Protein backbone atom coordinates (compact mmCIF):
# COMPACT_ATOMS: atom_id res chain seq x y z
CA UNK A 1 0.00 0.00 0.00
CA UNK A 2 2.81 2.35 0.94
CA UNK A 3 4.56 1.60 -2.32
CA UNK A 4 1.32 2.24 -4.19
CA UNK A 5 0.90 5.62 -2.47
CA UNK A 6 4.42 6.54 -3.42
CA UNK A 7 3.79 5.62 -7.05
CA UNK A 8 0.62 7.73 -7.07
CA UNK A 9 2.51 10.73 -5.69
CA UNK A 10 5.36 10.25 -8.15
CA UNK A 11 2.89 10.09 -11.04
CA UNK A 12 1.10 13.17 -9.70
CA UNK A 13 4.32 15.20 -9.94
CA UNK A 14 4.69 14.28 -13.62
CA UNK A 15 1.02 14.96 -14.38
CA UNK A 16 1.09 18.38 -12.70
CA UNK A 17 4.36 19.39 -14.38
CA UNK A 18 3.32 18.24 -17.87
CA UNK A 19 -0.21 19.61 -17.34
CA UNK A 20 1.16 23.05 -16.41
CA UNK A 21 3.50 22.96 -19.39
CA UNK A 22 0.62 22.06 -21.68
CA UNK A 23 -1.78 24.70 -20.34
CA UNK A 24 0.77 27.50 -20.22
CA UNK A 25 2.00 26.77 -23.73
CA UNK A 26 -1.47 26.53 -25.35
CA UNK A 27 -3.81 28.81 -23.34
CA UNK A 28 -2.97 32.54 -23.12
CA UNK A 29 -3.15 34.04 -19.64
CA UNK A 30 -4.48 37.65 -19.82
CA UNK A 31 -3.58 37.68 -23.49
CA UNK A 32 0.02 36.60 -22.89
CA UNK A 33 1.34 33.12 -23.69
CA UNK A 34 3.58 32.42 -20.70
CA UNK A 35 5.43 29.59 -22.46
CA UNK A 36 5.53 30.53 -26.16
CA UNK A 37 5.51 27.27 -28.19
CA UNK A 38 8.36 28.57 -30.31
CA UNK A 39 10.69 28.40 -27.32
CA UNK A 40 9.03 25.71 -25.23
CA UNK A 41 7.06 23.60 -27.72
CA UNK A 42 4.14 21.63 -26.22
CA UNK A 43 4.03 18.20 -24.56
CA UNK A 44 1.78 16.90 -27.32
CA UNK A 45 4.17 17.98 -30.07
CA UNK A 46 7.10 16.45 -28.24
CA UNK A 47 5.35 13.11 -27.75
CA UNK A 48 4.14 13.12 -31.36
CA UNK A 49 7.71 13.70 -32.49
CA UNK A 50 9.01 10.80 -30.43
CA UNK A 51 6.30 8.55 -31.81
CA UNK A 52 7.10 9.68 -35.35
CA UNK A 53 10.78 8.82 -34.87
CA UNK A 54 9.97 5.35 -33.67
CA UNK A 55 7.27 4.74 -36.30
CA UNK A 56 9.54 5.87 -39.11
CA UNK A 57 12.38 3.93 -37.48
CA UNK A 58 14.95 6.71 -37.93
CA UNK A 59 15.72 6.81 -34.19
CA UNK A 60 17.08 3.27 -33.98
CA UNK A 61 20.24 4.06 -35.89
CA UNK A 62 21.01 7.02 -33.60
CA UNK A 63 20.30 5.02 -30.45
CA UNK A 64 22.50 2.21 -31.71
CA UNK A 65 25.40 4.53 -32.51
CA UNK A 66 25.22 6.19 -29.08
CA UNK A 67 24.98 2.81 -27.38
CA UNK A 68 27.99 1.44 -29.26
CA UNK A 69 30.04 4.53 -28.41
CA UNK A 70 29.08 4.38 -24.73
CA UNK A 71 29.77 0.65 -24.43
CA UNK A 72 33.14 0.93 -26.16
CA UNK A 73 34.11 3.92 -24.01
CA UNK A 74 33.07 2.05 -20.87
CA UNK A 75 34.93 -1.16 -21.73
CA UNK A 76 38.15 0.49 -22.89
CA UNK A 77 38.12 3.04 -20.05
CA UNK A 78 37.46 0.34 -17.44
CA UNK A 79 40.14 -2.05 -18.65
CA UNK A 80 42.71 0.74 -18.80
CA UNK A 81 41.59 2.04 -15.40
CA UNK A 82 41.88 -1.38 -13.78
CA UNK A 83 45.33 -2.03 -15.25
CA UNK A 84 46.80 1.36 -14.39
CA UNK A 85 45.06 1.42 -11.00
CA UNK A 86 46.61 -1.92 -10.09
CA UNK A 87 50.00 -0.91 -11.40
CA UNK A 88 50.07 2.36 -9.43
CA UNK A 89 48.77 0.80 -6.23
CA UNK A 90 51.37 -1.97 -6.26
CA UNK A 91 54.24 0.31 -7.31
CA UNK A 92 54.18 3.39 -5.05
CA UNK A 93 57.18 4.89 -6.84
CA UNK A 94 55.35 4.90 -10.17
CA UNK A 95 52.29 6.42 -8.48
CA UNK A 96 54.42 9.14 -6.90
CA UNK A 97 56.13 10.02 -10.19
CA UNK A 98 52.91 10.27 -12.18
CA UNK A 99 50.81 11.81 -9.39
CA UNK A 100 50.99 15.48 -10.50
CA UNK A 101 50.22 14.58 -14.12
CA UNK A 102 47.26 12.40 -13.19
CA UNK A 103 45.90 15.24 -11.09
CA UNK A 104 46.51 17.72 -13.89
CA UNK A 105 44.72 15.71 -16.56
CA UNK A 106 41.87 14.91 -14.21
CA UNK A 107 41.46 18.59 -13.33
CA UNK A 108 40.98 19.42 -17.01
CA UNK A 109 37.32 19.65 -18.08
CA UNK A 110 37.26 16.83 -20.60
CA UNK A 111 34.90 18.68 -22.95
CA UNK A 112 37.79 20.82 -24.21
CA UNK A 113 39.40 17.64 -25.52
CA UNK A 114 36.47 16.94 -27.84
CA UNK A 115 37.65 19.20 -30.69
CA UNK A 116 41.15 17.73 -30.49
CA UNK A 117 39.79 14.20 -30.58
CA UNK A 118 37.59 15.15 -33.55
CA UNK A 119 40.75 16.40 -35.25
CA UNK A 120 42.73 13.27 -34.44
CA UNK A 121 40.08 10.59 -34.85
CA UNK A 122 37.66 12.22 -37.30
CA UNK A 123 33.93 12.77 -36.95
CA UNK A 124 33.06 9.07 -36.64
CA UNK A 125 32.65 6.86 -33.61
CA UNK A 126 36.31 6.86 -32.57
CA UNK A 127 36.47 10.47 -31.37
CA UNK A 128 33.39 10.01 -29.15
CA UNK A 129 34.77 6.80 -27.70
CA UNK A 130 38.03 8.61 -26.94
CA UNK A 131 36.18 11.33 -25.08
CA UNK A 132 34.17 8.76 -23.08
CA UNK A 133 37.35 6.83 -22.28
CA UNK A 134 39.00 9.89 -20.72
CA UNK A 135 35.95 10.27 -18.47
CA UNK A 136 35.50 6.61 -17.51
CA UNK A 137 39.19 5.88 -17.09
CA UNK A 138 39.72 8.24 -14.15
CA UNK A 139 36.70 7.06 -12.20
CA UNK A 140 37.67 3.41 -12.55
CA UNK A 141 41.34 4.17 -12.02
CA UNK A 142 40.80 6.06 -8.75
CA UNK A 143 38.43 3.42 -7.43
CA UNK A 144 40.68 0.48 -8.25
CA UNK A 145 43.65 2.35 -6.79
CA UNK A 146 41.68 2.98 -3.59
CA UNK A 147 40.45 -0.60 -3.54
CA UNK A 148 43.92 -2.07 -3.72
CA UNK A 149 45.34 0.45 -1.23
CA UNK A 150 42.57 0.08 1.30
CA UNK A 151 42.54 -3.67 1.67
CA UNK A 152 42.15 -4.32 5.39
CA UNK A 153 45.57 -4.95 6.92
CA UNK A 154 44.06 -7.69 9.08
CA UNK A 155 42.58 -9.49 6.08
CA UNK A 156 45.95 -9.20 4.36
CA UNK A 157 47.85 -10.53 7.39
CA UNK A 158 45.32 -13.35 7.67
CA UNK A 159 45.78 -14.24 4.01
CA UNK A 160 49.56 -14.35 4.51
CA UNK A 161 49.24 -16.51 7.62
CA UNK A 162 47.00 -18.90 5.69
CA UNK A 163 49.92 -19.34 3.31
CA UNK A 164 49.07 -17.20 0.29
CA UNK A 165 51.90 -16.22 -2.01
CA UNK A 166 52.04 -12.93 -3.89
CA UNK A 167 50.05 -14.26 -6.87
CA UNK A 168 47.35 -15.77 -4.65
CA UNK A 169 47.10 -12.53 -2.67
CA UNK A 170 46.47 -10.79 -5.97
CA UNK A 171 43.73 -13.20 -6.94
CA UNK A 172 41.99 -13.71 -3.59
CA UNK A 173 42.51 -10.37 -1.86
CA UNK A 174 43.55 -7.41 -4.02
CA UNK A 175 41.49 -8.29 -7.07
CA UNK A 176 38.12 -8.80 -5.31
CA UNK A 177 38.69 -5.70 -3.22
CA UNK A 178 39.51 -3.56 -6.26
CA UNK A 179 36.56 -4.98 -8.20
CA UNK A 180 34.16 -4.21 -5.39
CA UNK A 181 35.26 -0.59 -5.43
CA UNK A 182 34.96 -0.48 -9.18
CA UNK A 183 31.49 -2.00 -9.16
CA UNK A 184 30.32 0.42 -6.50
CA UNK A 185 31.16 3.25 -8.92
CA UNK A 186 29.51 1.47 -11.85
CA UNK A 187 26.57 3.88 -12.03
CA UNK A 188 28.90 6.84 -12.23
CA UNK A 189 31.26 5.37 -14.81
CA UNK A 190 28.48 4.08 -17.08
CA UNK A 191 26.80 7.47 -16.81
CA UNK A 192 30.01 9.19 -17.84
CA UNK A 193 30.44 6.84 -20.80
CA UNK A 194 27.05 8.04 -22.09
CA UNK A 195 27.95 11.67 -21.35
CA UNK A 196 31.17 11.29 -23.36
CA UNK A 197 29.29 9.82 -26.31
CA UNK A 198 26.50 12.41 -26.36
CA UNK A 199 28.74 15.44 -25.81
CA UNK A 200 31.08 14.20 -28.53
CA UNK A 201 28.16 13.80 -30.94
CA UNK A 202 26.83 17.19 -30.02
CA UNK A 203 30.10 18.86 -30.85
CA UNK A 204 30.52 17.26 -34.24
CA UNK A 205 29.16 14.08 -35.80
CA UNK A 206 26.78 12.62 -38.34
CA UNK A 207 24.74 10.31 -36.11
CA UNK A 208 23.70 9.63 -32.53
CA UNK A 209 21.34 11.16 -29.99
CA UNK A 210 23.65 14.14 -29.45
CA UNK A 211 23.66 14.76 -33.19
CA UNK A 212 19.87 14.55 -33.28
CA UNK A 213 19.51 17.16 -30.56
CA UNK A 214 22.14 19.40 -32.10
CA UNK A 215 20.46 19.21 -35.53
CA UNK A 216 17.03 20.11 -34.10
CA UNK A 217 18.58 22.99 -32.22
CA UNK A 218 20.23 24.29 -35.38
CA UNK A 219 16.83 24.79 -37.06
CA UNK A 220 15.04 26.11 -33.93
CA UNK A 221 13.06 22.87 -33.79
CA UNK A 222 12.36 22.97 -30.04
CA UNK A 223 10.01 19.98 -30.18
CA UNK A 224 12.89 18.00 -31.69
CA UNK A 225 15.27 19.10 -28.93
CA UNK A 226 12.85 18.12 -26.18
CA UNK A 227 12.02 14.85 -27.93
CA UNK A 228 15.74 14.08 -28.16
CA UNK A 229 16.17 14.85 -24.48
CA UNK A 230 13.22 12.61 -23.60
CA UNK A 231 14.61 9.68 -25.57
CA UNK A 232 18.06 10.26 -24.06
CA UNK A 233 16.66 10.33 -20.51
CA UNK A 234 14.77 7.07 -20.99
CA UNK A 235 17.84 5.53 -22.65
CA UNK A 236 20.04 6.45 -19.65
CA UNK A 237 17.40 5.22 -17.18
CA UNK A 238 17.25 1.88 -18.97
CA UNK A 239 21.04 1.52 -18.85
CA UNK A 240 21.08 2.57 -15.19
CA UNK A 241 18.48 -0.05 -14.37
CA UNK A 242 20.55 -2.70 -16.14
CA UNK A 243 23.63 -1.63 -14.19
CA UNK A 244 21.61 -1.91 -10.96
CA UNK A 245 20.71 -5.51 -11.81
CA UNK A 246 24.32 -6.39 -12.63
CA UNK A 247 25.55 -4.68 -9.47
CA UNK A 248 23.13 -6.55 -7.23
CA UNK A 249 24.37 -9.81 -8.66
CA UNK A 250 28.05 -8.98 -8.33
CA UNK A 251 28.00 -7.45 -4.87
CA UNK A 252 25.86 -9.98 -3.00
CA UNK A 253 28.56 -10.26 -0.37
CA UNK A 254 28.22 -6.61 0.59
CA UNK A 255 26.14 -5.58 3.61
CA UNK A 256 24.53 -2.67 1.73
CA UNK A 257 25.60 -1.85 -1.80
CA UNK A 258 27.19 1.56 -1.58
CA UNK A 259 25.19 4.08 -3.54
CA UNK A 260 27.57 6.34 -5.40
CA UNK A 261 25.10 7.67 -7.92
CA UNK A 262 25.78 11.29 -8.71
Amino acid sequence: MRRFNLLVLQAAVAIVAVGLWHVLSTVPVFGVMLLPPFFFSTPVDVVLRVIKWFVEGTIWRHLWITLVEAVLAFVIGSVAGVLVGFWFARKPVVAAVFDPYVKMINALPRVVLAPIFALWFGLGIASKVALGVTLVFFIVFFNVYQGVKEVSQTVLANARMLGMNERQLMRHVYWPSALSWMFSSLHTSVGFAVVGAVVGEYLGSAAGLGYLIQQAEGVFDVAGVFAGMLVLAVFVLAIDWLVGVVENRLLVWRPVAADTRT
Partner: protein
Amino acid sequence: MTQSAAVALDHCTIAFRLADGGSYTAVEGVSLAVADGEFVSIVGPTGCGKSTLLNVAAGLFGPSAGTVRIFGTELAGLSREAGYLFQAEALFPWKTALDNVAIGLEIAGTPHADAHARAEAWLRRVGLTGFGGRYPHMLSGGQRKRVGLAQVLIRDPKILLMDEPFGPLDAQTRQIMGNLLLDLWSADRKAVLFVTHDLEEAIALSDRVVIMSAGPAARIIGEWRVPLGRPRDIAEVKLEAGFHALHREIWHMLKEEVVKGYAQTGGG
Protein backbone atom coordinates in the same frame (compact mmCIF):
# COMPACT_ATOMS: atom_id res chain seq x y z
CA MET B 1 62.74 -28.08 27.21
CA THR B 2 63.61 -24.89 25.35
CA GLN B 3 65.06 -27.02 22.55
CA SER B 4 61.83 -28.82 21.80
CA ALA B 5 59.49 -25.96 22.69
CA ALA B 6 56.87 -25.20 20.05
CA VAL B 7 57.47 -21.49 20.40
CA ALA B 8 60.51 -20.08 22.15
CA LEU B 9 61.09 -16.34 22.40
CA ASP B 10 64.57 -15.61 23.67
CA HIS B 11 65.32 -12.12 25.03
CA CYS B 12 63.11 -10.51 22.44
CA THR B 13 63.03 -6.75 22.22
CA ILE B 14 60.64 -5.13 19.80
CA ALA B 15 61.00 -1.47 18.87
CA PHE B 16 59.22 0.62 16.27
CA ARG B 17 60.48 3.66 14.46
CA LEU B 18 58.10 6.54 14.94
CA ALA B 19 57.05 9.07 12.32
CA ASP B 20 58.91 11.85 14.15
CA GLY B 21 62.20 9.95 13.85
CA GLY B 22 62.31 8.62 17.39
CA SER B 23 61.69 5.04 18.35
CA TYR B 24 59.28 3.30 20.66
CA THR B 25 60.20 0.16 22.53
CA ALA B 26 57.05 -1.90 22.89
CA VAL B 27 58.50 -5.01 24.47
CA GLU B 28 61.87 -5.46 26.12
CA GLY B 29 63.86 -8.61 26.85
CA VAL B 30 60.99 -11.06 26.84
CA SER B 31 61.78 -14.76 27.10
CA LEU B 32 58.90 -17.15 26.86
CA ALA B 33 58.57 -20.78 25.87
CA VAL B 34 55.41 -22.65 24.98
CA ALA B 35 55.79 -26.43 25.07
CA ASP B 36 54.13 -28.61 22.48
CA GLY B 37 50.54 -29.19 23.54
CA GLU B 38 50.61 -26.44 26.14
CA PHE B 39 47.99 -23.69 26.44
CA VAL B 40 49.62 -20.43 27.54
CA SER B 41 47.86 -17.11 28.01
CA ILE B 42 49.49 -13.72 28.05
CA VAL B 43 47.62 -11.18 30.15
CA GLY B 44 48.51 -7.54 30.47
CA PRO B 45 47.09 -4.06 30.55
CA THR B 46 45.95 -2.26 27.41
CA GLY B 47 48.79 -1.30 25.10
CA CYS B 48 51.42 -3.46 26.76
CA GLY B 49 52.56 -5.06 23.53
CA LYS B 50 50.87 -8.44 23.93
CA SER B 51 49.71 -8.45 20.32
CA THR B 52 53.13 -7.29 19.16
CA LEU B 53 54.65 -10.29 20.85
CA LEU B 54 52.18 -12.55 19.08
CA ASN B 55 52.96 -11.00 15.70
CA VAL B 56 56.64 -11.69 16.28
CA ALA B 57 55.86 -15.29 17.18
CA ALA B 58 53.92 -15.52 13.91
CA GLY B 59 56.79 -14.01 11.95
CA LEU B 60 54.65 -11.11 10.69
CA PHE B 61 57.65 -9.05 11.69
CA GLY B 62 60.97 -9.81 13.32
CA PRO B 63 62.21 -8.76 16.76
CA SER B 64 64.70 -5.88 16.98
CA ALA B 65 66.85 -8.03 19.23
CA GLY B 66 66.64 -11.61 20.41
CA THR B 67 65.51 -14.74 18.60
CA VAL B 68 62.32 -16.63 17.88
CA ARG B 69 62.54 -20.39 17.56
CA ILE B 70 59.74 -22.62 16.31
CA PHE B 71 60.34 -26.25 17.29
CA GLY B 72 64.01 -25.45 17.67
CA THR B 73 64.56 -23.75 14.29
CA GLU B 74 65.06 -20.03 14.15
CA LEU B 75 62.15 -18.25 12.51
CA ALA B 76 62.84 -16.25 9.37
CA GLY B 77 59.77 -14.81 7.71
CA LEU B 78 56.28 -16.09 8.28
CA SER B 79 55.82 -19.13 10.44
CA ARG B 80 54.46 -22.01 8.36
CA GLU B 81 53.58 -24.01 11.46
CA ALA B 82 51.34 -21.40 13.03
CA GLY B 83 47.69 -20.56 12.64
CA TYR B 84 46.70 -17.06 13.69
CA LEU B 85 43.27 -16.00 14.91
CA PHE B 86 42.96 -12.22 14.78
CA GLN B 87 41.06 -9.89 17.04
CA ALA B 88 39.67 -7.79 14.18
CA GLU B 89 37.56 -9.08 11.31
CA ALA B 90 39.92 -11.16 9.20
CA LEU B 91 37.55 -13.23 7.05
CA PHE B 92 37.41 -12.49 3.33
CA PRO B 93 34.15 -10.55 3.04
CA TRP B 94 33.74 -11.53 -0.62
CA LYS B 95 33.86 -15.25 0.08
CA THR B 96 31.11 -17.38 1.62
CA ALA B 97 31.71 -19.04 4.98
CA LEU B 98 32.48 -22.31 3.18
CA ASP B 99 34.94 -20.70 0.77
CA ASN B 100 36.55 -18.86 3.66
CA VAL B 101 37.21 -22.13 5.45
CA ALA B 102 38.30 -23.99 2.31
CA ILE B 103 40.70 -21.33 1.04
CA GLY B 104 43.61 -22.40 3.26
CA LEU B 105 43.53 -25.85 1.67
CA GLU B 106 42.86 -24.66 -1.86
CA ILE B 107 45.85 -22.36 -2.00
CA ALA B 108 47.97 -25.25 -0.80
CA GLY B 109 46.83 -27.25 -3.83
CA THR B 110 44.04 -29.41 -2.40
CA PRO B 111 41.47 -30.14 -5.13
CA HIS B 112 38.36 -27.97 -4.94
CA ALA B 113 35.87 -30.75 -4.15
CA ASP B 114 38.07 -32.27 -1.48
CA ALA B 115 38.74 -28.90 0.15
CA HIS B 116 35.03 -28.13 0.19
CA ALA B 117 34.13 -31.46 1.72
CA ARG B 118 36.64 -30.92 4.50
CA ALA B 119 35.49 -27.32 4.98
CA GLU B 120 31.93 -28.61 5.29
CA ALA B 121 33.09 -31.00 8.00
CA TRP B 122 34.86 -28.18 9.83
CA LEU B 123 31.80 -25.96 9.72
CA ARG B 124 29.95 -28.85 11.35
CA ARG B 125 32.60 -29.11 14.06
CA VAL B 126 32.27 -25.43 14.94
CA GLY B 127 28.48 -25.71 14.96
CA LEU B 128 27.72 -23.93 11.72
CA THR B 129 26.07 -26.69 9.69
CA GLY B 130 23.96 -25.10 6.97
CA PHE B 131 25.66 -21.71 7.18
CA GLY B 132 28.28 -22.43 4.51
CA GLY B 133 26.53 -20.36 1.84
CA ARG B 134 26.39 -17.18 3.91
CA TYR B 135 28.71 -14.26 3.49
CA PRO B 136 30.47 -12.93 6.60
CA HIS B 137 28.16 -9.93 6.91
CA MET B 138 25.18 -12.27 7.16
CA LEU B 139 26.68 -13.97 10.22
CA SER B 140 26.72 -12.76 13.82
CA GLY B 141 29.99 -11.78 15.51
CA GLY B 142 30.18 -15.14 17.27
CA GLN B 143 29.47 -17.06 14.08
CA ARG B 144 32.20 -15.15 12.28
CA LYS B 145 34.65 -16.15 15.01
CA ARG B 146 33.59 -19.77 14.54
CA VAL B 147 34.29 -19.50 10.82
CA GLY B 148 37.65 -17.91 11.66
CA LEU B 149 38.46 -20.78 13.99
CA ALA B 150 37.59 -23.34 11.33
CA GLN B 151 39.56 -21.37 8.72
CA VAL B 152 42.68 -21.58 10.86
CA LEU B 153 42.27 -25.10 12.21
CA ILE B 154 41.51 -26.77 8.86
CA ARG B 155 45.16 -26.30 7.94
CA ASP B 156 46.06 -28.28 11.06
CA PRO B 157 48.74 -25.88 12.32
CA LYS B 158 51.00 -27.17 15.09
CA ILE B 159 50.82 -23.83 16.85
CA LEU B 160 47.77 -21.69 17.43
CA LEU B 161 48.27 -17.98 18.04
CA MET B 162 45.22 -16.10 19.23
CA ASP B 163 45.01 -12.35 19.66
CA GLU B 164 42.05 -11.54 21.93
CA PRO B 165 39.94 -13.54 19.49
CA PHE B 166 36.79 -13.28 21.57
CA GLY B 167 37.35 -9.67 22.59
CA PRO B 168 34.50 -8.11 20.61
CA LEU B 169 31.92 -10.70 21.70
CA ASP B 170 29.37 -10.46 24.50
CA ALA B 171 29.95 -12.32 27.78
CA GLN B 172 27.74 -15.35 27.03
CA THR B 173 29.10 -15.82 23.55
CA ARG B 174 32.66 -15.59 24.88
CA GLN B 175 31.95 -18.38 27.29
CA ILE B 176 30.46 -20.58 24.59
CA MET B 177 33.38 -19.84 22.27
CA GLY B 178 35.85 -20.59 25.07
CA ASN B 179 34.28 -24.00 25.61
CA LEU B 180 34.28 -24.66 21.87
CA LEU B 181 37.95 -23.76 21.73
CA LEU B 182 38.79 -26.10 24.63
CA ASP B 183 36.77 -28.88 22.98
CA LEU B 184 38.59 -28.54 19.67
CA TRP B 185 41.92 -28.16 21.40
CA SER B 186 41.53 -31.26 23.55
CA ALA B 187 40.99 -33.35 20.41
CA ASP B 188 44.60 -32.81 19.29
CA ARG B 189 46.54 -30.66 21.68
CA LYS B 190 48.29 -27.94 19.79
CA ALA B 191 50.59 -25.42 21.38
CA VAL B 192 48.45 -22.34 22.03
CA LEU B 193 49.58 -18.82 22.74
CA PHE B 194 46.48 -16.88 23.73
CA VAL B 195 46.56 -13.13 24.27
CA THR B 196 43.83 -11.50 26.34
CA HIS B 197 43.22 -8.67 28.76
CA ASP B 198 40.68 -10.78 30.63
CA LEU B 199 42.33 -12.57 33.53
CA GLU B 200 39.31 -14.81 34.22
CA GLU B 201 39.27 -16.01 30.64
CA ALA B 202 43.03 -16.64 30.77
CA ILE B 203 42.86 -18.74 33.94
CA ALA B 204 39.81 -20.68 32.80
CA LEU B 205 41.41 -21.67 29.49
CA SER B 206 45.10 -22.09 30.18
CA ASP B 207 47.74 -24.36 31.63
CA ARG B 208 49.92 -21.35 32.34
CA VAL B 209 49.27 -17.63 32.67
CA VAL B 210 51.96 -15.05 31.90
CA ILE B 211 51.56 -11.49 33.14
CA MET B 212 53.11 -8.54 31.33
CA SER B 213 53.87 -5.13 32.72
CA ALA B 214 52.44 -1.91 31.32
CA GLY B 215 54.24 -0.51 28.26
CA PRO B 216 56.43 0.98 26.97
CA ALA B 217 59.24 -1.54 27.27
CA ALA B 218 56.84 -4.11 28.67
CA ARG B 219 58.37 -7.14 30.38
CA ILE B 220 57.08 -10.39 31.74
CA ILE B 221 56.55 -9.83 35.46
CA GLY B 222 54.99 -13.05 36.56
CA GLU B 223 54.07 -16.56 35.58
CA TRP B 224 51.59 -18.95 37.15
CA ARG B 225 50.70 -22.57 36.52
CA VAL B 226 46.96 -23.14 36.61
CA PRO B 227 46.31 -26.09 38.93
CA LEU B 228 42.84 -26.82 37.58
CA GLY B 229 41.96 -30.18 36.05
CA ARG B 230 40.80 -30.90 32.53
CA PRO B 231 38.46 -31.22 30.78
CA ARG B 232 37.03 -27.94 32.01
CA ASP B 233 33.80 -26.11 31.56
CA ILE B 234 34.50 -22.42 31.61
CA ALA B 235 31.36 -21.47 33.51
CA GLU B 236 31.88 -24.18 36.14
CA VAL B 237 35.60 -23.82 36.58
CA LYS B 238 35.06 -20.22 37.62
CA LEU B 239 33.18 -21.44 40.69
CA GLU B 240 36.04 -23.57 42.00
CA ALA B 241 38.02 -22.47 45.07
CA GLY B 242 41.34 -22.98 43.29
CA PHE B 243 40.23 -20.59 40.58
CA HIS B 244 39.44 -17.87 43.11
CA ALA B 245 42.68 -18.24 45.02
CA LEU B 246 44.73 -17.99 41.83
CA HIS B 247 42.67 -15.14 40.49
CA ARG B 248 43.19 -13.15 43.71
CA GLU B 249 46.91 -13.82 43.71
CA ILE B 250 47.46 -12.78 40.08
CA TRP B 251 45.08 -9.85 40.20
CA HIS B 252 47.00 -8.41 43.13
CA MET B 253 50.01 -8.01 40.85
CA LEU B 254 48.14 -7.16 37.67
CA LYS B 255 46.10 -4.38 39.28
CA GLU B 256 49.08 -2.06 39.68
CA GLU B 257 50.08 -2.57 36.05
CA VAL B 258 46.58 -1.93 34.83
CA VAL B 259 46.53 1.38 36.71
CA LYS B 260 49.92 2.29 35.23
CA GLY B 261 48.74 1.27 31.77
CA TYR B 262 45.67 3.46 32.06
CA ALA B 263 47.75 6.42 33.22
CA GLN B 264 49.98 6.05 30.14
CA THR B 265 47.26 5.68 27.57
CA GLY B 266 45.16 8.41 29.12
CA GLY B 267 42.46 5.98 30.14
CA GLY B 268 42.03 4.84 26.55
